[in-house]
């Protein structure tokens, strides 16, 4: 299972492709279950980068826990949550609020 992620051009904030746009939370990102879907995500990412919406586009491994998308690698978990040393900052703080 994979999802498409990038950083937003204007502020660099980590975003995930969801529902035809870029979401600030990974939870409801569009999931690619097969190679064809993955290729589609990659094409969407390349087009968005070319269109100067986002940068540093990547397709990453995820799982689904309680109906929400969760990245597999620690690096991507931290991108999705915020610095582990600052629970008060980043997405984790927004989620808690």
């Amino acid at each position: 299972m994979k999802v498409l992620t990038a950083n937003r051009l204007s502020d660099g904030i980590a975003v995930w492709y969801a529902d035809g746009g870029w979401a600030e939370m990974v939870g409801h990102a569009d999931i690619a279950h097969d190679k064809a879907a993955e290729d589609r995500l990659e094409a969407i990412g390349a087009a968005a980068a070319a269109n100067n919406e986002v940068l540093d586009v990547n397709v990453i491994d995820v799982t689904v826990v309680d109906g929400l998308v969760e990245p597999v690698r620690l690096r991507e978990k931290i991108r999705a949550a915020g610095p582990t040393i600052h629970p008060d900052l980043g997405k984790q703080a927004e989620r808690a609020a």
Partner: protein
Amino acid sequence: MYRYDEFDHDFVQARVAEFSDQVKRRLAGEISEDQFRPLRLMNGVYLQLHAYMLRIAVPYGTLNSGQLRMLGHIARKYDKGYGHFTTRQNLQFHWPALADVPAILADLASVEMHCIQTSGNCIRNVTADHFAGAAADEVADPRPYAEILRQWSSVHPEFSFLPRKFKIAVTGAERDRAAIQAHDIGLHLKKNAAGELGFAVYVGGGLGRTPMVAKKIRDFLPEAELLSYCTAILRVYNLYGRRDNKYKARIKILVHETGVEEIVRQIEAEWQELKDTELKLPEADIAAINAYFAPPALSARPEGDALVKQARLDSKSFSEWLDQNVVTHRHPDYAAVTISLKGIGEVPGDVTDSQMEAVADIAEKYAFDELRVSHEQNLILPHVARADLKAVYDALVEIGLSTANSNLISDIISCPGLDYCALATARSIPVAQEISRRFASLERQREIGELKLKISGCINACGHHHVGHIGILGVEKKGSELYQVTLGGSADENTSVGEIIGRGFSSEEITDAIEQIVDTYLGLRLNPDERFIDAYRRVGPAPFKEALYAGETKAA
């Protein structure tokens, strides 16, 4: 300290205007990321995991109160209320929006600061001894030479597209506090028998994936030849440094592959062409730059001795702070103070907006408006009258910056690691925090004595782990964080690269392993004066390996 002249102001303003326009065009979609990336890097803008990062140059680590106050203002207005001091004596903000960067740069320019050459394959911020101008053991202040190098290297047309980044450090004392032998060029300012100033020149040091101790290639270079000789070194590097492999592109690899004798021959040959040219520094120019660094007028404050003595009796914590964080100044009535940014369990090098402002106030009131950033990620008040030490201490207590741990095991250098950095392979800050908490007792730390612990979250070694007495390198192995330990490194006048002690440790194991190493040292040192590094050099790795891994060998 150095003040911008008209040329400097115009130059920085022009760069702000230029980059502001580039940002505007990027945000409007007129230029692509591929086109913009080298431009943003030239102006200190990186992309990290959560956001952009802005790295601000603090030339040779020298700041005044107004500048620190401005950094606090930027932290509050454009970032998330804090900044991070780095091992290159710079400051990083971890959350700026690209759209805000032009305004931040304009604010910085208003206090004579910028982000130029804090990234890219150019000559980076020149670093210096953080006690420069104050240290009792100093021959001369190294900062005027660092400033001359800064002016020479700023947008130097020949050296703006080097094979790789290039770092220069300068010290003015025998005791090296600037880690000069871990730099591409290390300069040790000294006097010859005739009393003339010059430099011992070291080349080819560096950390990263191939750590190397710099080689001394000249024992005494007359000060007037600083730029001609550095140009010769850079020219040889620019010509022959490898551009085919990023990991072999630093001058340390060139020096290693070419051999010291041959590289010296090449540099000397180049220098013969350069030494009697316009690159020779005129005495008047050296004097003019030196004048900017004239020490503050330190009036006699002999009442300090009695006041300090009494304050010691009144307060044990003040007394401990004095022992640990205050060092001898060249003027007997004064001292240099280390403000530890390593509170127990805190993030090494991080400081909040209000702390920045409060420290700026303290520097203004008690320290002649001068501050330094150390490569060990602390702040320094270089000139404080001993009579004012108690007042400074009390003010630091109020803002939570009075931790008395300079040079102790909790005074840890740590890179941002995987909590922020896109290159990192493991987290480093949480490891630093846990070790700091484990060794929280000051009594225990002081019993252990001087111990330099340095942590990097990837092989690029921003946390200087190779030259830590104890070094920790975080890597990713099978999807988990794994921490390799090196022992026996040091970054002083006897620089050495630490040796990997054995298999790595998980994040759950690493603090226990460090404690075991420390306990082993305590058990084998000859006396409390034998520092960890000295004991390690005497006994080697065997007792530490035994303590860490003996059980496993037997089990296997």
